[in-house]
């Protein structure tokens, strides 16, 4: 299995599925071709399926297939005790389960499009010890790893 392991927030996962030319799609293709490992949590699946079911219900089955074909590893959501221990790290507690899921998965990179919540506060990356960035940031980092 490939070296770099990236956790996709639901925003990055869906951008990869629906945006044909972006860095997020490149990450999904690298996952599908087993150049990198992609990891998500049950929450990411649930959020994605629920949002698609509300906005474009006819595409739900295709989205599920795309998730499966991208070769993602789906992990259980973290226990509440783990989340509680990290609640003070972020302004919005609702994002903490995603941060903790990535932390517990020991991934190399947490990929998200939620700039305000994850990226503008640099202390989140410092406290968690995770690299956190946009799909573009993550692809640049993966590129460095692959050409080493």
């Amino acid at each position, binding site marked *: 299995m490939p070296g770099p392991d990236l956790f996709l927030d639901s925003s990055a996962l869906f951008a990869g599925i629906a945006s044909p030319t972006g860095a997020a*799609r490149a990450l999904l293709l690298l996952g599908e071709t087993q150049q990198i490992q992609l990891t998500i949590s049950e929450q990411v699946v649930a959020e994605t399926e629920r949002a698609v079911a509300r906005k*474009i219900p006819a595409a739900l089955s295709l989205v599920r297939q*795309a998730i499966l074909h991208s070769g993602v590893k789906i992990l259980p959501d973290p226990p509440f005790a783990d989340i509680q221990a990290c609640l003070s790290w972020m302004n919005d507690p609702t994002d903490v389960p995603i941060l903790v899921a990535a932390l517990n998965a020991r991934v190399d990179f947490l990929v998200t499009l939620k700039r305000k919540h994850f990226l503008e506060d640099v202390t989140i990356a410092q406290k968690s010890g995770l690299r956190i960035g946009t799909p573009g940031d993550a692809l640049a980092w993966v590129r460095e790893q692959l050409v080493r």
Partner: protein
Amino acid sequence: MSLSTTIQIRSKGSLTLPVELRRKYQFNDGDVLRLIDLGDGSFLITPQATTVDRLGDRIAEMMAEQDVSLEDILEALDQERQQYYQERYARP
């Protein structure tokens, strides 16, 4: 042969894979490879077919047909995050 090699773009963007690599991986005339754009002028070439591209492009078409933008879905994802947290983690 080393892991990296130099190739040159020729007329109409043609690239020639070195014969050693073609032999090593049993590539023949007419074989189809997938090229993934990694940005910054870097590419990954793989013999593996991808399904994500085909499914994703179809989903993007359906979104366009129904006038649903990526931003619409990102907003819906934010709402679902709030809801999921309330259901699973919030204590009364």
